[in-house]
């Protein structure tokens, strides 16, 4: 894995307007994404994962709006400050999306071929019709679909095939960042695995960076290089995947891991007591403190910052000691 940065997100804040109040859905999130790596983002429903993904492509819809922060691509451009036309050009050519619920992500009345071609045409690559068609059949081949799919309509495809079309579509312009928002949540486990393999293959061939959003920890363990855990709009831990599973640092991560079944040991599965706080009335200090088994007094007052506790691990918790590598 190279250390070339594909996307650097700094202090990104996205809120939903609700009357007079602003609901902080993504609250001061910063992370780096390296070329060729796969960063998993996990969190409960409502923790801000999808809002983060959409905001990175500036596809968020009102009442969501971006309060501040930057998202800098490899070429130094900040996505958050691009004008409309530059943003349009950036989408898909630099950043592409594999959407949540791909079942309905394809236009039902347009052939697959044309849905792939219009992405190319929108970016004025000056390709000939023959070149575009060749590229489409090459991409379909790469995700394991026959050429004939190009002439088909979405309703003629199975769920797994549709998801493969979405993957082929996502790499049509060879972007440097691919955002996969729960790419397999609508598929059964067998298809899930194959689709995920395909996705990982094409990502490696392109050496693109990929953000995989989801709540399936098993899938993350198989696919992601690093894992970021979101809780109530904040990132609470970012770790390489192996050390995360072996030695989670944040109390929330620890509870998350102990709630997973393990083949090695038979034990009672522990849940996490309580539920995620309302974003409208976040607890003071650390948002996790009411559910945290080890919370101290300062957790109720000070908001912990995401800081390096190891050379490659960042955790937002007062109680985690920094250890020299």
């Amino acid at each position, binding site marked *: 894995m190279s250390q070339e940065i594909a996307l650097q997100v700094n202090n990104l804040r996205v809120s939903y307007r609700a009357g007079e109040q602003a609901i902080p859905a993504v609250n001061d999130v910063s992370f780096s994404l390296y070329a060729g790596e796969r960063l998993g983002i996990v969190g409960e429903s409502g923790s801000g994962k999808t809002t983060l993904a959409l905001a990175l492509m500036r596809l968020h819809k009102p009442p969501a709006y971006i309060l501040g922060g930057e998202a800098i691509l490899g070429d130094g451009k900040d996505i958050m400050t691009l004008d409309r036309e530059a943003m349009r*050009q950036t989408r898909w050519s630099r950043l*592409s999306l594999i959407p949540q619920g791909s079942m309905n992500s394809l*236009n039902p009345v347009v052939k697959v071929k044309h849905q792939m071609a219009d992405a190319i045409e929108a970016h004025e690559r000056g390709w000939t019709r023959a070149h575009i068609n060749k590229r489409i059949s090459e991409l379909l081949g790469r995700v394991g679909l026959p050429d004939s799919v190009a002439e088909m309509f979405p309703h003629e495809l199975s769920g797994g095939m549709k998801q493969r079309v979405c993957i082929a579509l996502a790499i049509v312009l060879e972007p440097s960042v691919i955002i996969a928002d729960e790419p397999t949540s609508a598929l059964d486990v067998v298809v899930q695995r194959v689709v995920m393999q395909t996705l990982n293959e094409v990502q490696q061939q392109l050496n693109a960076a990929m953000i995989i959003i989801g709540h399936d920890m098993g899938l993350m363990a198989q696919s992601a290089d690093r894992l970021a855990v979101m809780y109530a709009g904040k990132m609470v831990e970012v770790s390489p995947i192996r050390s995360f599973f072996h030695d989670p640092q944040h109390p929330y991560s620890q509870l998350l891991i102990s709630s997973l079944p393990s083949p090695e040991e038979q034990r009672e599965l522990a849940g996490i007591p309580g539920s995620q706080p309302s974003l409208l009335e976040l607890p003071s200090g650390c948002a996790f403190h009411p559910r945290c088994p080890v919370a101290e007094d300062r957790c109720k007052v000070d908001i912990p910052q995401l800081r390096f506790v190891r050379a490659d691990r960042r955790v937002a918790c007062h109680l985690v000691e920094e250890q020299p590598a």
Partner: protein
Amino acid sequence: MSYLSRRIIMFGIVVLLAATANFAIPRMAPGDPIGAVLEELRARGASTGGAAEQEIVAAYRARFGLDQPVFTQYIRFLVNTLRFDLGYSISYYPQKVESALLRALPWTVGLLAISTVISFAFGSFFGALMAWPRTPAAVNRFVPFFMVLSAVPYYLLGLILVYLFAFVMRLLPLGGAYSSGTIPTLDIDFLLDVIRHGILPALSILLTSVGFWALGMRGTMVTVLGEDYLTLAEAKGLSDRRVFFGYAMRNALLPQVTSLAIALGTVASGSVLVEVVFAYPGVGWLLYNALRSSDYYMVQGVAFFLILTVAVSVLVVDLIYPLLDPRIER
């Protein structure tokens, strides 16, 4: 069975049922057509009754085939109907019903079908714009305007328009399809005259129906805008124009097209009142006059013809629909 043959068989059944109803209903009504004519003749003092009258009645019954068994009458009626032989008009005897219909038809189609299609196109586009988030806010100020207009009956608006533009301002003719005294020809002057006569009736239909299309389109468009494929279209970096027409409108139009089929089918019957208000010599005007003069055969003919137009337009849309929506099998 293929989609096409299913549709065509369906069409055949509808036409057959319509013809049957057309045959049955007048025969279930009390009295008979000859009696009705006699009644009229007596009222005018033209008939005195007696044996001579009985003979005349019998002759006429034979002439119209009313002395035959019902089943024979039915078969004969069906054959005639299928040959588009709708019988003689009573008021304009010996004119045939179908020739009167064919003379009225171009006016109705020209006025009503064209204004319905314009209203559909304009209303759908406007409705789509109203739902589109990047439309200037000014467009949305028209929403209440459309709502009010779509609640106004078109004949009422027609009356208001006639009063204002024809009676008070005298800008446009009061009624008719062309100036009386001119002979229908295909030259520019006549065409302009027809257009001048068509403006007010067309406007009354346009203004009252455009709101219906706009509001319907706005509704489906809002639903389509929430679909995942719209997010993906935008993520692909497509231009606004491409997303609007190719993705949003393209899908939101589908239910609108179904409504258009029904609207076109009922165009002829539904706007009888417009033709009455404007004394426009179309099918509606024909029906109105036939009803007033108890011209049974004409009423029957017009009714059958209207069912036929509905069936034809539904058939046409059924045949076009698979091209618009590939999910409907051909």
